[in-house]
């Protein structure tokens, strides 16, 4: 096992573990908004790590451009989708956890 393979393996493992953490958050948190907070950001970071690892493995210019395009797609669309869904959930009055002490969108 040479050094490149070791780096690739570590990157893939970090990405997969971050994804596992985010899905534990998706399962355990008590509220739609908290679940979105846990899942959206962390899994985007995890898939970024996995893309970097795979791009290092193939080492091909065209494939690296494709993987960068994929990462850019995720880094741009995940916040937009989460924003749309969170505003839909707030309009539909999905219940929040009882520890919620501020709701700025509701005061306007």
């Amino acid at each position, binding site marked *: *096992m040479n050094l490149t*393979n070791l780096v690739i*393996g570590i990157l*893939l*493992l970090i*990405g*997969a*573990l971050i*994804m*596992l953490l*985010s*899905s*534990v958050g*998706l*399962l355990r948190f008590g509220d*739609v908004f908290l*679940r*979105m907070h846990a*899942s*959206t950001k962390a*899994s985007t970071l*995890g*898939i970024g790590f*996995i*893309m970097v*690892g*795979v791009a290092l*493995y*193939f080492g*091909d210019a065209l*494939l690296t451009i*494709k*993987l960068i*395009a*994929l990462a850019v*797609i*995720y880094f741009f*669309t*995940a916040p*937009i*989708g*989460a924003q*749309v*869904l969170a*505003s*839909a*959930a707030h*309009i*539909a*009055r*999905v219940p929040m956890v009882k520890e919620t002490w501020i709701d700025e969108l509701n005061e306007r």
Partner: protein
Amino acid sequence: MTTILMLVQLVLLLSLVLVTVRLLRGPSLVDRAVASDQLALRVVALIVVHSMESDQPFLIDLVIVTAIVGFLSLAVIGIYIERIVRSKKQDELGDVL
């Protein structure tokens, strides 16, 4: 290298199972939409790792299509819920909200 790849796939599979539990259990429609988007993202990660394992780089093209379709479905579900609630026709959705 094979061992690490197997470990990575195992961890991704475990997180897939956790997301599926939330997808089946989620109290509201928005929970299920978030969980299905996360499911698509983990499937994308599994396909990317598999394309590296079996040395088939053309699978990456397939993954780009999956990413775009997943985002569009998420946005459409959000806009649908918002429009239904604004037009006071919540009976159409039943008690899923």
